[in-house]
Structures are given as structure tokens and as C-alpha cells.
């Protein structure tokens, strides 16, 4: 399908130009290779340190080693932990244990529902192709929160505005990589031009498949998916829902034209219905 200007869904190669930038730099993003994540959470800490995100919860969750729980207004990098035990090869023996670890982040979608539904223009597309909240404009209407198909953006208690990963916009403009990518010791979080990352990711998946890791797959890499591909995509070792990710996310805006049509028709029907009610003799 050929992308058209201001398309609401489908592949869209140049998000920044589409958003109105004259000569934007290459689109950048994250490739998070969860097959080399060691669950150290340096990404969580580096993000909070750089962005002065408040601490958000001192309760043991029992969700393996995940006490951060989920992405939200005060957690912009969230490391998930999933313990799995394979059925034993022989009864009486122990099955192999697998411990999946994955650092989740805002996907900076090509078609970002949060951005689409923001009524104040607070959420914008930057020249880097990323999606960012302008905190001096946001009035906390909260519409972006249920619009996000990944459940990323949220309202900060006590503040009223919404917050999410900025892909360290302030670092990007100074030519630096985001704090989480810098801190990650195993290069699970890789930052760079999105095209390059996608190539690297394809190679990595191939390497893993050749090594017998059949369950390795990319997630969010495909420009033909429901959000036009993510600016932050992943290599996973199991189904997305195991990590808390939607299997087949779709930007809600895709259906919006149809919604408007139906709303218009319903409104029209209401007007007609009201008018008809007044026809005929009194009373």
C-alpha cells in the first residue's frame, strides 16, 4: 500500500517529514535485544536519574524480580522477568528453567495513537521521529492514556500531567545517546538509526535461529503492522503477551474515519428523528 501524506495507518517511511519537518535527521530508535538482557535494571536507574523521574513504589510484588511492575508515568524503562520451567525430558528429572528478561519502553510508534488523540497539541513528533510530551502544554485530560495500544503513557499522581519516555530528546539534540542505552552493559538496548537497527535485528534473529533458538522473533519491527512499525522494537524469545505486550496492536486512529462517518450519520438521524417528532397536528 503506498503511503500517502497524512495517512493514519500503514507503512510510513518518513514520519518526521510527514509531521512537517523540512529536513529532519534520520529517524532513530531502540532495538532491544532481550536475548542478551541480564536483568540488571541499569536502564531503569539511568533513566530515572537523567530524567528526574520520581520513585514509584516500595512494595515487594512477588512477580519474580520485577518490582517496577509496568511502564507508567514514573517508570519509563521497565524490566520484565518471566520464570518458565519446561516439562522434564524424563519423569523424575527436573525440567530446564528459562528466565526471560526484557526491558520494555515506549514504542514511539510510527502511527502513535497518543499523539493522534492529544487535544492540546502537547504530544508531538520530534525531528528525530520520536514522540514526546510537551509538559508545559499538557493539561492532563488523560485521553492519551487509554489510547495507547501498549499501555505506556500514564498520568502522574499529584502532578496531573502525563509522562513517558522521551527517548532522551534533550540528549539527542546534543548528539548523545539515550541514558538507558548508554548504561546497558550488554548492549541489549541498542540505539541508532532505525533502518540500521532493523537490519542488525534481522541478522541477529537469523543467528539465533541458526543456533537453534527457534523461539526468537522480532516484535514491532514491521512497517506493515497495525501501528506502522515501532521506533522502539524488540527481539523476544516467546510470544509478546508473555511479556505483557499486545500480540497484534493496532493504532486506534486507523478506524477513526469510519467512526466519524457513523457519528455523523447518527447525528443526522437524531436531527431527522427530532424533526419528525414535531410533524403532524398538535398536540
Amino acid at each position, binding site marked *: 500500500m503506498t503511503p500517502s501524506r497524512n495517512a493514519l495507518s500503514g507503512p510510513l517511511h518518513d514520519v518526521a517529514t510527514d509531521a512537517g519537518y523540512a529536513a529532519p535527521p534520520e529517524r532513530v530508535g531502540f532495538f532491544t535485544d532481550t536475548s542478551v538482557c541480564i536483568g540488571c535494571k541499569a536502564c531503569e536507574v539511568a533513566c530515572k536519574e537523567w530524567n528526574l523521574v520520581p520513585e514509584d513504589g516500595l512494595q515487594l510484588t512477588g*512477580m519474580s524480580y520485577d518490582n517496577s*511492575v509496568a511502564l*507508567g508515568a514514573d517508570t519509563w524503562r521497565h524490566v*520484565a522477568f*518471566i520464570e518458565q520451567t519446561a516439562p522434564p525430558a524424563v519423569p523424575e528429572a527436573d525440567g530446564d528453567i528459562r528466565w526471560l528478561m526484557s526491558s520494555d519502553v515506549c514504542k514511539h510508534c510510527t502511527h502513535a495513537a497518543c499523539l*493522534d*488523540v*492529544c*487535544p*492540546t*497539541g*502537547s504530544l508531538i513528533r520530534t525531528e528525530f521521529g520520536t514522540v514526546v510530551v510537551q509538559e508545559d502544554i*499538557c*493539561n*492532563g*485530560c*488523560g*485521553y492519551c*492514556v*487509554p*489510547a*495507547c*495500544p*501498549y*499501555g505506556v*503513557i*500514564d498520568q502522574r499522581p499529584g*502532578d*496531573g500531567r*502525563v509522562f513517558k519516555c522521551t527517548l532522551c530528546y534533550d540528549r539527542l539534540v546534543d548528539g548523545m545517546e539515550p541514558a538507558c542505552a548508554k548504561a546497558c552493559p550488554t548492549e541489549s538496548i541498542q540505539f541508532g538509526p532505525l533502518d540500521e537497527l532493523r537490519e542488525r535485528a534481522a541478522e541477529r534473529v537469523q543467528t539465533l535461529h541458526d543456533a537453534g533458538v527457534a523461539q526468537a522473533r522480532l516484535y514491532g519491527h514491521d512497517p506493515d503492522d497495525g501501528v506502522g512499525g515501532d521506533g522502539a522494537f524488540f527481539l523476544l524469545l516467546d*510470544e509478546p*503477551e508473555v511479556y*505483557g*505486550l*499486545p*500480540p*497484534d*496492536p493496532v493504532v*486506534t*486512529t486507523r*478506524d*477513526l474515519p*469510519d*467512526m*466519524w462517518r*457513523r*457519528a455523523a*450519520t*447518527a*447525528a443526522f438521524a*437524531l*436531527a431527522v*428523528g*427530532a*424533526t*419528525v*417528532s*414535531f410533524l403532524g397536528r*398538535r*398536540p
Partner: protein
Amino acid sequence: MVPEAEFRSYYGRPVIKGPVWKTPDVPVYLFAGGLAGTSAVIAELAAWTRRPALERASRVAAAGGALIGVTALVHDLGRPERFLNMLRVFKLTSPLSVGSWILAPFSGLAAAAALSALTGTLPRLGRAAGVGAAALGPAMATYTAVLFADTAVPAWHEAYPELPYVFAASAAAAGGAVGLVAVPLDESAPARRLAVAGGATELVVERVMEGRLGFVGEPYREGRGGRLLKAARLLTAAGTLGGLVTRRSRVGSAAAGVALLAGSLLTRFGVFEAGRASARDPKYTVVPQRARLTESA
């Protein structure tokens, strides 16, 4: 299509985030907005067909509903002092932006029209304002369905084909109910007709909607959302029937009207709760998406 009973999730946690909107603020706004929109239309039609009592009552309902709605919305904001930022841009992709640009002029016009009608000042300007409000009125009633549906909330998004009609019909029932409650029998006939038509339509369309939704429609049938919608249905049915049989009873009409108003209000609460429930339980997000992938594979 029967969805898989088994699905996987991350410790049973939600995949998406439910609305942070406050209750009762947002459900009340939906109700008040629909009521106000329809009332604005009824007011103009009443004026045109010379039914002054109906006109007055509807003008007040339009203005009052708008006022309640605006208050509820501003109160719901995380940063209420920044409510004017709603008018920084006009975005078609944002039902809330479009809605703000509908609500803002509508409130002004409806208030002006009501003030003019009640005080008798500037009648021509007041009439013009009323016409303007009436033009925006139906939109007031239906854009809120788009507001809800244009999210990732499964019970809302998947319901988008019918939801505008449900809200329109519910608004019609509420707008008409104002006439049943506040207007003498000799002027309220059109309101009665509209109320009954709205109520009946709402009941039918809702059934159709839930039937088509299937698994994802579960929150409309079960839990808190289910209970609220059941109550709403009962009240709307009672009010619709009541509207039909109380042509000659002022008191009966008022009772029917109140039932319809309550039903319309509870419908909004019910839809709101159903949405929240569908956001909370990961199965409503995962199961249909997984099924979609399996089908296309």
C-alpha cells in the same frame, strides 16, 4: 467465533491502561452533553412550532446541561487551570479536540439562547444563538461515542460501529424526557414521541451491539458494567413504555421522564465501567488479537 479459553499474560496484569478519567465526571458529562445537544434541537423546533413551554424548558436543559458538562470536564482535567489549552489546536484525529470545538461554541450559544429566552432581552440575537446551538446539538450527542471508541479499550473500540447510535438514541430519550418532566401535556407530545423513539432505538441497538461483540462484549453483560447497564435497560424500558401510556397523566409522564433520564445516565456509567473492566483484564486484549494472528497465519 469462539475465542480460546487459554491465553497467556504477564502475571495477569493489564496490557493497556484503562482511562484515568474520573467518575462521575466523565459519565455525567456524556449524559449532560447528550441531553443538552438534543434539548438545543428540541428548543428550536419548539420555537418554530410555537410551543413556548417546551422551548423554555429545552433551552434551560441545553444551557444547564452544557454548564454541567463543561464543569465536569474541567474538573476532570489533571491541570484544570490549563483548560483553555484545549483550544490551542483543532485536530480531526482527536475526538476530544473536535469535541472541545463543538462544546465551547455550543455552551456559549446555548447559554446565550437560554438567557435571552428567560430574560426576554435581545430576542433576535438569542434566537440566532439558539439556531447555532441546535446546529451543533446532534454532534454534541454523538461525538462522545467516538471519544470512547477512539481508544485501545477493547469494549469501546470494538463497539464503534454501534456506539454512536446508542449514544444518539440515549440522548434523544433524555432530551425528550425533559419535556415529559417539565412541560405541560399539551406541548410535550413531540418530546414524548422523541423520547419513546429514542428509548426503543437505544434498547434495540444496544442488543445488536452486544450480540456482535461476543467475547469482548462480556463486560457489558457481567460485573459492575453489566449491572449498571441492566439497570439502565430496565429504566429505559420502563420509561419508554411509560411514555407510551401516560399521554394523559402529567405525573405519569414525569415519572416516565425521570426513568428515561436515569436510564440515559446509567447507560453512560455502564459503558464507562464496562470499558474499564475490559482494559483491566488482559484477556480482552490478548485473546482477540491472538485469534486474529492465528487466523491470518
